[in-house]
């Protein structure tokens, strides 16, 4: 065990999943109640101790400078034939997690296009959410013993919500498995029913999937985040990529002075190349592998490594991984480990923008929205070829895919010493995001789906 003085500098504030990370299925984190212990002499500004007030949601025209007037026009034309038709979105949580974050932006934008969208959240007791959490893990491949009691709890709460909610809209969208059985009310509704599955179903626990499948098959369509997440089903399956909001705190344009100020406060030297990974301290993100790749690359090129993570305090494994990262980092003063609170979206934004390269060396991944964020900022990005990352990184065109520590190290060396190649890749990466992974594209997909369902199945008996 190395002494504390020998470890790389780290800043640790509070527990909780971190902004800029793949959202988890969970609740919003609480603010800290006391000043946390810091892992190094680097001081974090006091302003980071409390979450900032959320900015108001943007309007459609606010995106015009980003996507162009022609794309805004296309959204308006798409919505024109749907004017007055309504959509209901139903999920299991109003705050925290990527689905709620996405709905917070999607619902107002659809309504602004005169396609009124309503958002309802199902209710349930702890027993329900324990079962659905277990289902969530099982659908991701964790073995699970499906009991009769678990099935009854799942069905009972779905039935309660089915009786409580109204289904008067023309399209009902159910997000994820928790409210899946609400579809049993479809016979009494005139709506088209769509299941939006945000999780990877490529290798589900067979018992849980066979229990849920009959409900899925009652929908008019299912939506997945990647081709590889889909199942063989008798209903149409569509691909909706997850998306980022270019006007959010995490992704909006920043003044150079803001970036400089934040980097100064966090002790990041902008006069030298910066290689960054933004991720929870989780073995699946391979932060130790990133440190190893940095050390191999540093034999040939000068650079700093920033590991901006979170989740080390609320997750026992996260704390262990953070310790492993510190030990791997040793006493290298150019490795900066930041354990940031979950509301540090602006800081993550600034760190990503200040970076010369961004790495996401995951060994297992959902979609990998941190990759999307880096690409959007025009950063040359090196990432593991797992999960949804190959949908975002077209090897050597919009970024580079790697499969090993050594491959990652080589790409760091190459891109730091070939800035023109890196710049071109960054530009293509940003265009790829603009075309496929922005909130406005998501709005377009929902409008397209609504129109397609209306045309294919124009009249459903109520």
């Amino acid at each position, binding site marked *: 065990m190395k002494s504390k003085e020998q470890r790389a500098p780290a800043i640790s504030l509070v527990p909780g999943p971190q902004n800029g990370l793949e959202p988890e299925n969970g609740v919003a984190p609480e603010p800290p109640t006391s000043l946390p212990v810091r892992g190094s002499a680097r001081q974090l500004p006091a302003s980071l101790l409390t979450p900032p007030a959320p900015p108001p949601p943007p309007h459609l025209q606010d995106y015009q400078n980003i996507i162009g007037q022609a794309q805004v026009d296309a959204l308006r034309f798409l919505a024109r034939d749907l004017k007055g038709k309504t959509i209901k979105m139903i999920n299991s949580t109003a705050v925290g997690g990527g689905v709620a974050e996405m709905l917070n932006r999607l619902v107002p934008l659809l309504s602004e296009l005169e396609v009124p969208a309503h958002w309802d959240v199902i209710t349930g007791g702890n027993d329900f959410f324990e079962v659905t959490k277990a289902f969530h893990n099982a659908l991701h491949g964790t073995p699970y013993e499906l009991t009769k009691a678990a099935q009854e709890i799942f069905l009972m709460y779905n039935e309660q919500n089915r009786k409580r909610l109204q289904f008067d809209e023309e399209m009902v969208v159910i997000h994820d498995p928790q409210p899946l059985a609400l579809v049993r009310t479809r016979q009494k509704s005139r709506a088209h029913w769509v299941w939006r599955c945000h999780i990877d179903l490529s290798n589900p626990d067979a018992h849980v999937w066979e229990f849920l499948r009959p409900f899925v098959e009652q929908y008019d369509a299912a939506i997945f985040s990647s081709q590889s997440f889909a199942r063989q089903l008798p209903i149409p399956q569509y691909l909706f990529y997850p998306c980022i909001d270019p006007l959010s705190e995490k992704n909006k344009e920043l003044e150079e002075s803001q970036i400089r100020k934040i980097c100064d406060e966090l002790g990041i030297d902008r006069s030298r190349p910066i290689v960054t990974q933004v991720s929870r301290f989780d073995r699946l993100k391979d932060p130790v592998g990133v440190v190893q790749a940095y050390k191999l690359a540093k034999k040939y090129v000068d650079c700093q490594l920033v590991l901006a993570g979170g989740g080390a305090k609320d997750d026992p494994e996260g704390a262990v991984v953070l310790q492993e990262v510190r030990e791997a980092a040793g006493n290298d003063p150019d490795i900066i480990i930041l354990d940031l609170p979950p509301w540090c979206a602006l800081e993550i934004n600034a760190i990503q923008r200040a970076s010369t390269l961004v790495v996401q060396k995951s060994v297992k991944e959902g979609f990998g929205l941190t990759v999307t964020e880096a690409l959007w900022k025009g950063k040359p990005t090196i990432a593991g070829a797992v999960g949804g990352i190959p949908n975002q990184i*077209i090897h050597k065109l919009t970024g580079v895919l790697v499969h090993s520590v050594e491959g990652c190290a080589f790409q760091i060396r190459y891109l730091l010493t070939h800035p023109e190649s890196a710049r071109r890749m960054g530009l293509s990466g940003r265009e790829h995001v603009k075309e496929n992974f922005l909130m406005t594209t998501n709005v377009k997909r929902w409008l397209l789906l609504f*129109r397609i369902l209306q045309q294919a199945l124009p009249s459903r008996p109520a």
Partner: protein
Amino acid sequence: MPTPDKSMPRKPDKPFYFNTSEHLLRIGSQTASTLSELLQALESCAEDSIFQHTFRTLQEHHFIRQGFSNDFAHWILSACHEPVLAEKLASVDVREFTAIEGLRKRMIEIVDEFLKKHPRSGSHQANEPFYFCASDIVVLPTPFVAESLAGFLDGLQHVSVHSIHHHFIEARLRLHLMSNDFSQWLEEEAGLPRTADSIERIDIYTNTMEGVRQQIARIVEQVLN
């Protein structure tokens, strides 16, 4: 740059309506994990799958200047590590086809020929499967309708690159002609056959779609000037 028409454009009888198309990606049931499976799937998949992975993918990747041609070639290079076959498939120019069946036949010929020469390559497992997809398409109007060559240039400069793709690349599947909507209108309505020909000869594989737009605009500007 080819010489544009020397004669003045005539007043078009019919306006040019700039449209655009939007696509929603549908995940198909077919996958391929080897080149042999890819060949089988190419023979049996729906036409809209071939369209998706050739014509449509060019629209999705319109910002790439070179190095991306179609999804089959990309998968064969990145997941099957067969650069020779990938290069041959990448060299297939979708604009040489006015119907999907012809394009499918050409793709099958290339893969089949390769596997006859390299039979052991047919059963190698790819790093990741190829997922056959297709698109549901919605054609939309834009606010731009050109009643003159100047109006045409104005519309061209303001519509999205999706509209350029719709009129310039996908059009031949609608027209069943080795041409595009822009060239057709310029020749038939504005009496500018050489201009139409110059536009048809723009190389889409060494340009981004934005670059294609700019080249078309330059050709039209030459006539106007």
